[in-house]
């Protein structure tokens, strides 16, 4: 029996709802081909052949085992790339996926030959250099665009507007949105195209960014290369709406669907979309149907793996974009058949020569095999170079410490210092932009951190939709572009998990992965909220997790004075910096300047809050005060060090070492649960650096095993405060033994 039977009424009327955003399919006509600019057609033909020959060489080298890692071939998909890129400017941006050689090359070729290609002299020296550097990068060689560290899946050339392809499915799309945001707010009408496949169209990064781009009217084009298969999974299996461009209208985005094997169609669709975006009407979606002739990776056809038929593959080859453009040009009398062959030969010859420059006969291997030329490899000493910047950007700044500050100091609430320093920096640096949930309302967001700022700096305090992954990624793209300096807020640290790919795989790795020189000046603010009853999923201290990421710096100010200095440093650094706050500190007071908010704290310097001889207490944030209270209560002569800089690269080993050599005992104090705790790696490092100075094992105060729950009593038992530090100090004291010789 239908449970709703008794409530059913049949007098309802329904009317179809439609999206405000247009959704169309575009096809070329003979007229389009007849009208197309011959230079455009010639350029497209030349690029198609260069890319095809390049990709064939990559597969050849991969077959010889010379491509370390995967080789995701774009053979068959060149039409979608060439058609869409050919009309773009160098200042327009593109990024792509693991299968991104074709778009990268199209953009690079367009950059070095902005007036088009000459089919009679196809491979100019500039083009040869582009091919050389791209192939070098794919082979992991020092001469590549990213010094060999990016490879096939992380191809970047900022000068050409190639923002960097991405090995995480959809990973580059939020970053592309950041680039588009910067283009728009720098007053240009440039656009950004993010290329990804049918496999990516269902992932969070893409869908969140579609929403964000539409909400913020970003000039961002979501270019979906639908090649019908994600490895071996068909589109029909993976989604309920196989017309992938259909997602656009759902987000209010103008969407086009086009035959990706027809480069002219792709070009015309892109032109229309670009006009839409350059006109400030927001983002666009283009879905291009293409086909990769080979399997996901390597040089075997997909049919060999059983998920599609040889007939299907053959049918698509008959729609080959190289053949289509050539045929149309021959029909119009723009080129002869043998000239077409010559184009192909030029491309192949250039690639054969290039492969020969990068390889040599392998004298240790079987006859006829090749190997990479030894001198082309990057030096192994380069492996850890350029994880972060070299700090030259803060070499000439004014340093202050509260103890020696000679200016006027007033009693200041911590949260007022937070808003105060942000106000000052936004006043002096128009590049700074704040993003986060509700930061633009509620008189300064959820805690008052942005109080007064939305009114003073309209358009620069951005309230985001609830999409941490997308908006921190947007911040990352903004930072990598460099025209703006984003300050992103995570309302609770636990939300880093929602955004983990953008935070760690993208922002945290970008500089190193792309060769070591690309700055990522992003500041991320978040507050530890353990003790507020928000429960297991809102109570973490993220320091331990962030400390695992080599690319992130972490500062943890425990006083208003220090907050000002450390935030100023964070904003000046060219690296991603986590500025860690704590709810317990917001209402606390200290002395801070009100008329001088321009100083920095010394880089990498901890603060000795209390001198002592018997144990070194290492701690940060709200636990500094708890530690000092515990020391008073126990009467133990402890040296309490406020670390202030928490990441491995910035930690103050000098201060820590001097203290341990004096006290011979260490107590690491933090509040949060053991699993995600910060002190594990620190204790390990101390045990090895200072083994001969330790009179007892490194001791620790942490929260309990599980994340704190909402029940007030249970929550208190799950975190560390003063009582737990008292207990820790007593444990250390037991390690002193009972021989009562005092120094």
């Amino acid at each position: 029996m239908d449970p709703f039977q008794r409530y059913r009424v049949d007098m309802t009327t329904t009317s179809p709802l439609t999206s405000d955003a247009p959704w169309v399919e575009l096809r070329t006509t003979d007229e389009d081909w007849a009208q197309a600019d011959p230079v455009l057609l010639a350029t497209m033909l030349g690029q198609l052949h260069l890319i095809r020959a390049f990709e064939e060489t990559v597969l050849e080298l991969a077959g010889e085992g010379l491509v370390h890692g995967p080789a995701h071939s774009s053979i068959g998909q060149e039409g979608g790339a060439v058609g869409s890129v050919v009309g773009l400017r160098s200042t327009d941006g593109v990024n792509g996926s693991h299968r991104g050689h074709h778009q990268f090359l199209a953009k690079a070729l367009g950059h070095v030959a902005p007036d088009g290609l000459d089919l009679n002299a196809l491979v100019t020296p500039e083009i040869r250099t582009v091919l050389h550097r791209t192939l070098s990068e794919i082979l992991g060689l020092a001469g590549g665009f990213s010094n060999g560290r990016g490879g096939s899946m992380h191809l970047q050339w900022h000068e050409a507007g190639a923002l960097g392809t991405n090995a995480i499915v959809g990973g580059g799309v939020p970053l592309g949105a950041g680039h588009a945001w910067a283009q728009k707010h720098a007053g240009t009408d440039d656009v950004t195209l993010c290329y990804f496949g049918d496999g990516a169209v269902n992932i969070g990064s893409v869908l969140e960014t579609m929403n964000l781009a539409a909400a913020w009217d970003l000039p961002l084009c979501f270019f979906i290369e639908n090649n019908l298969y994600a490895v071996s999974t068909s589109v029909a299996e993976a989604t309920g709406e196989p017309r992938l461009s259909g997602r656009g209208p759902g987000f209010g985005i103008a969407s086009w669907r086009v035959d990706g094997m027809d480069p002219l169609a792709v070009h015309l669709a892109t032109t229309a979309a670009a006009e839409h975006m350059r006109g400030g009407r927001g983002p666009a979606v283009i879905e291009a149907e293409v086909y990769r002739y080979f399997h996901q990776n390597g040089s075997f056809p997909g049919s060999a793996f059983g998920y599609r038929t040889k007939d299907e593959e053959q049918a698509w080859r008959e729609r080959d974009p190289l053949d289509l453009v050539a045929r149309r040009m021959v029909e119009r009398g723009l080129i002869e058949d043998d000239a077409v062959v010559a184009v192909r030969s030029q491309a192949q010859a250039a690639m054969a020569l290039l492969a020969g420059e990068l390889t040599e006969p392998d004298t240790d291997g079987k006859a006829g095999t090749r190997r990479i030329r030894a001198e082309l490899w990057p030096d192994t000493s380069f492996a850890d170079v350029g994880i972060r910047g070299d700090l030259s950007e803060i070499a000439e700044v004014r340093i202050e410490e509260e103890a020696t500050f000679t200016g006027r100091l007033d009693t200041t609430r911590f949260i007022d210092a937070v808003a105060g320093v942000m106000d000052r920096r936004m006043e002096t640096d128009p590049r700074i932009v704040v993003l986060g949930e509700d930061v633009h309302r509620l008189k300064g967001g959820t805690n008052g951190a942005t109080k007064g700022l939305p009114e003073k700096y309209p358009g620069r305090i951005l309230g985001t939709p609830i999409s941490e992954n997308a908006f921190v990624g947007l911040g990352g793209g903004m930072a990598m572009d460099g025209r703006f300096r984003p300050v992103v807020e995570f309302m609770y640290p636990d939300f880093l998990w929602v955004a983990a790919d953008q935070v760690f795989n993208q922002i945290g790795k970008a500089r190193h992965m792309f060769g070591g020189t690309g700055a990522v000046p992003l500041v991320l603010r978040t507050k530890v909220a353990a003790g507020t009853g928000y429960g297991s999923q809102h109570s973490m201290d993220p320091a331990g997790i962030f400390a695992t990421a080599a690319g992130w710096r972490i500062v943890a100010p425990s006083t208003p004075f220090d907050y000002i200095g450390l935030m100023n440093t964070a904003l000046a650094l060219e690296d991603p910096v986590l500025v860690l706050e704590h709810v317990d500190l917001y209402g606390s007071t200290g002395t801070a300047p009100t008329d001088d908010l321009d100083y920095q704290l010394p880089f990498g310097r901890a603060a000795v809050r209390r001198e002592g001889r018997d144990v070194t207490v290492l701690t940060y944030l709200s636990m500094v005060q708890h530690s000092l209270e515990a020391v008073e209560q126990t009467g133990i002569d402890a040296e309490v060090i406020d670390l202030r800089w928490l990441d491995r690269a910035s930690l103050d080993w000098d201060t820590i070492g001097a203290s341990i050599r004096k006290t011979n005992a260490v107590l690491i104090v933090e509040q949060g649960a053991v699993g995600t705790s910060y002190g594990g790696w620190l204790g390990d490092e101390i045990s090895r650096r200072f083994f001969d100075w330790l009179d007892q094992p490194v001791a620790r105060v942490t929260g309990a095993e599980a994340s704190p729950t909402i029940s007030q009593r249970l929550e208190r038992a799950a975190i560390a405060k003063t009582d737990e530090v008292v207990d820790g100090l007593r444990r250390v004291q037991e390690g002193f033994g009972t021989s009562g010789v005092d120094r």
Partner: protein
Amino acid sequence: MAHLLLMPAILAGATEAVLLSWHVQPGGSFAEGDALAEIETDKALVELTAEEAGVLGRAVVLDGQRVAVGDPIAVLIAEGDTEADIETALTAGAPEATSASEPSLDAAPPAASDVPELPAPSPSRLFVSPLVRKLAREQEIDLTQLTGTGPGGRIVRRDLEAWVAAGGSGRRPAAASTPPPAPAEVEEIPHTGMRRAIARRLTESKTTVPHFYMTAELRVGRLLDLRAEVNARPGTHVSVNDLLLKAAAAAFERVPEANVVWTDDALRRFPTVDIAVAVATDAGLVTPVVRDIGAQSLTRLSTSVRDLVDRARAGRLHQHELEGGACSISNLGMYGTREFSAILNPPQSSILAIGATRDTVVVDDGTIGTAQVMTVTMSVDHRAVDGALAAQWLAEFGRIVEHPVSMLV
């Protein structure tokens, strides 16, 4: 109560001795201080005297028998002890030992006599903090002597500090007993590692090495003239000490048997003459070694010495520069000290203590006159160098100092 009398070690390091003859018969009684037996070592004949009154219960060893040090030679009993008691004492295993009284040695100053202890049985595992292990290694402390009060019986820093403050215990003679608590006005200067090292090494030297002393008064007029002449050359600053070093080296070359040090198994003789110079620094006494003095010209020697002295004062000597040589020279003449005797620098066998030069009345061939005289006192390790050899060396040294030209030939 019957107890065993053990063969004592007359000299440190001796492993056996001969019981020449008993002075008491079994059953005979003796008073405190009576001679019980005569004991012969390689070098000396010594009377074994009774520490307290008693009766010789049984002689375990007979006249003329060679015995290992530490082995029982007799059972001493009190009035009323029976044969059974004697048997018990003999089979008891490791009874309490009576330590030998200080024997008297002829011709040599008294040396402390050690009863060598059996090494304490080491526990199967010592729990020690890494810090204490490092400190013990640096200060050559035997950790088996300490008790740990840390968790699990771990020896921790405060245990080590307490042990050191109490003067330590165990094999080494106590350097100092626990000092009485100091009155409030007294300043306590904590020991540096160097101060402790000096205390330990020189205590060990003074108490375990048989020192004897020999003095000579030397006419140094010609030496001082030679120095003036040498220093007349611009840029030359040779000191009296440099000349004395050169003289000592020459003496060793003529009496090479004195260029030796004692080791447990052999006398080690050196192919070159290396002599250490005592340097007073702010941190304490340091004795860097000047190498192969014979091969160096006077001016070069002077430069070497000055370099070592400067670096010693700056604390920048290398460890290898502090080791080696059979002899040291120590000069306190600049303080006006007339005469003094120095403590041997282990493992060296001699040290020459130089006093101040003074004008004094002398007698030559019955005629009274004045001359510049310097008193030097030599301390010698009797294990390595006997009196006659030392006297020979000192005479040679004196001859060279008084006729310094002979250093050239």
